[in-house]
C-alpha cells in the first residue's frame, strides 16, 4: 500500500461522516433520527477502521454496531414511543454539558498536539492484521478473557431477556433464554 497523505480527501469525508453523524445523533430532537444518525456515525467509524487496514474490525464494527446496536436502539425507541411527546424537551442547562465537552476536547487536543509527535515518532512498518493471527491470539493467549466475555454475553442475553419480560400479563413475548452455550458463541454475535 503506498504511503497515504496525512490529510487525504477520503479521510476528510469519513471524518466528516463520523463527526457529522455524532453531532446529529446527540443533537437531533427527533429520537428516531438520532438513532439513525448514530448508525451513520458508526458506519463512518467503520470506514475509518477500514482505512487503517483493520478490515476485520471494520466489518465487525458494522455487524455489531449497525446491525445490532443501532437497530436495537431504534427498536427500543419504537417500543417506548409516545410516552412523551414526539420531540424531547431540551435540557434546562445544555450549556454546562456542551461547555464541559468543549473544554475537555480542548484539553485533549492540546495534549495530543503537544505530546504526540514525541510519542509516536517511530513510523514503524504498518502492522498487518491477519484474521488467523487474531484467532490464534484470542484462543491461546487471551483464552480466559474470551471465555469471560462469552460468559458475560450469555449473562447479558439472559439478563436482558429477563428484564424485558413483562410482568405476568397477557402479552407473551419471545424469551431468548435458550441460547445458553456461551463458549461457542463468537464474541461478535449480535445479541
Amino acid at each position, binding site marked *: 500500500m503506498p504511503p497515504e497523505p496525512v490529510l487525504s480527501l477520503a479521510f476528510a469525508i469519513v471524518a466528516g461522516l463520523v463527526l457529522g453523524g455524532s453531532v446529529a445523533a446527540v443533537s437531533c430532537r*427527533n429520537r428516531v433520527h438520532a438513532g439513525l444518525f448514530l448508525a451513520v456515525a458508526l458506519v463512518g467509524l467503520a470506514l475509518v477502521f477500514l482505512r487503517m487496514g483493520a478490515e476485520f474490525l471494520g466489518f465487525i464494527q458494522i455487524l455489531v454496531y449497525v446491525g445490532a446496536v443501532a*437497530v436495537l436502539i431504534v427498536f427500543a425507541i*419504537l*417500543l417506548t414511543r409516545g410516552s412523551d411527546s414526539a420531540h424531547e424537551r431540551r435540557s434546562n442547562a445544555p450549556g454546562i454539558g456542551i461547555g464541559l465537552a468543549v473544554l475537555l476536547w480542548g484539553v485533549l487536543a492540546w495534549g495530543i498536539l503537544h505530546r504526540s509527535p514525541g510519542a509516536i515518532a517511530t513510523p514503524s512498518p504498518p502492522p498487518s492484521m491477519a484474521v488467523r493471527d487474531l484467532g490464534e491470539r484470542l484462543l491461546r493467549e487471551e483464552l480466559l478473557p474470551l471465555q469471560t466475555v462469552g460468559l458475560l454475553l450469555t449473562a447479558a442475553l439472559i439478563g436482558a431477556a429477563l428484564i424485558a419480560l413483562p410482568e405476568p400479563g397477557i402479552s407473551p413475548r419471545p424469551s431468548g433464554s435458550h441460547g445458553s452455550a456461551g463458549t*461457542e458463541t463468537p464474541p461478535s*454475535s449480535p445479541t
Partner: protein
Amino acid sequence: MDAPDQIFVLLKHAVVSWFPTPVQPWISAVLSIGAILAVYPMIFALTTVIERKALGRIQNRPGPNRVGPAGFLQFAADGIKSLTKEDIVPRAADSVVHFLAPLVVVVPPLLALAVLPVGRNMVALDLPETGLLFFLMVGTAVELGVFMAGWSSHNKYSLLGAMRAIAQLLSYELPLLLSTVSVVMLTGSLSLNAIIGHQSEVHAGVLLGWNVFTPWGAAGAVLFFIAALAEANRSPFDLPEAESEIVAGYFTEYSGFKFALFFLGEYLGLFAVSGLGITLFLGGWLPPLTVLSWVPSWLWFFGKLAVLMGIFIWLRGTLPRLRMDQLMRFAWQFLLPMSLINLLVAALWQYSTPWPHLLRWLPAAILFGIPYLLYHRAFLRQHPPRTYRYAS
C-alpha cells in the same frame, strides 16, 4: 476445455487490456460492477415471472401468459407500470427517511453479491481475509432500511411490519451466523474462495467433497436455508409483509418505483443469501461429480441458484405462514440450539478424521436424532392427534 468456463474472465481481460495501465483497475472494477448490476436484476426479472408462472401452475392456473412469448415479458410490463406510477409520499411521512429507505434496502444485497464467487476466477470483489464477514456485515444493514421504511411511513401497519421485521431479522441472524461458523471452523478461512477450494477434494473417485455431503454440512445447510428464508422474508416466514394481517407490512405506504425497489431488494437479498448457501454448503461453482467438470463453472452456480429458487417457490406455494410468537420460538428454541449442536458435530467430525466413515456419522446421528425426537414429542404433546365424534 477452459474456453467456455473462462469465457467471461477472458472477455474481461481482453477489454481491460485495451486501456492504459493506470486506469486498468478502474475499468476492471467498472466491468465487474456493471456485470453485477446487469446480471442479478435480470435474474430478478426472470425470477418474478417464473415464480408467478410456477405458483400459478401449483395452483392449477396458467399464471401470466399475455405479455411476450408465454408471458415472459411480464416483468417489462410490470417495470414500466411501476416506473410510470405516481410516487405517493404520505403527507405525514418523514419524507427524507421515506426516500432513503428503499435505497438502504437495495444497496446492501448488491454489495453482498459482489463477494460471491460465481465461477472459477469469477468474483467481483475478492476479500481473502474477511469475505464471509463482509457478506454477513452487509446483510445486517438491511434491517435499518426496513426499520426506516416502516417508521417513516407513519402508518400503523408499516410500524407493525417494521417491528416484526426487526425482531425476525435479529433473531434469525444468530442461527444464520452460527450455521456458517461450522463451515469456517472446518475450512479455517473466512475467504469464500478458500471455502469453495476446500470442497473440491474428491471422494470415492467421483464425488466432490461438498460440505452438504457431511453430517454437519447437511444439517448446517438445512438450518442455514431455514434461517435464510426468514432473513429474506420468504414464505413461510413472510410475516413482515403478511398481506392478510398487516396489508403489506413495512412498505404499505410505498408505491411505484420505490415499491419496485423493495421488491428488487428482497429478491436480491434472497439471491445473495442463497448464493452464500451455495458457496458454503453446495460447493459453490463446483460440479457434484468429477465427470461433470466439463460444464462451465458459472453454469453450476446459476443452476444451483435456479434450483434453490424453485424450492423456495415451491415452499411458498405450499406453506401457511407462522405466527409471530411461533416464529420467535422457532428461532430461539429450535434453530439456535440445533445450530449449536451442529457446531459440536462439526468439531467431532474434525477430530474423528481417522475413524471409518460410517462411524463418523454415528455421533452426528445421535446428536441430531435425540433432539429431533424430543421436539417431536413436545409437538405431539402440544398437538395430539384429534378424533371427532358424531352426534347420535
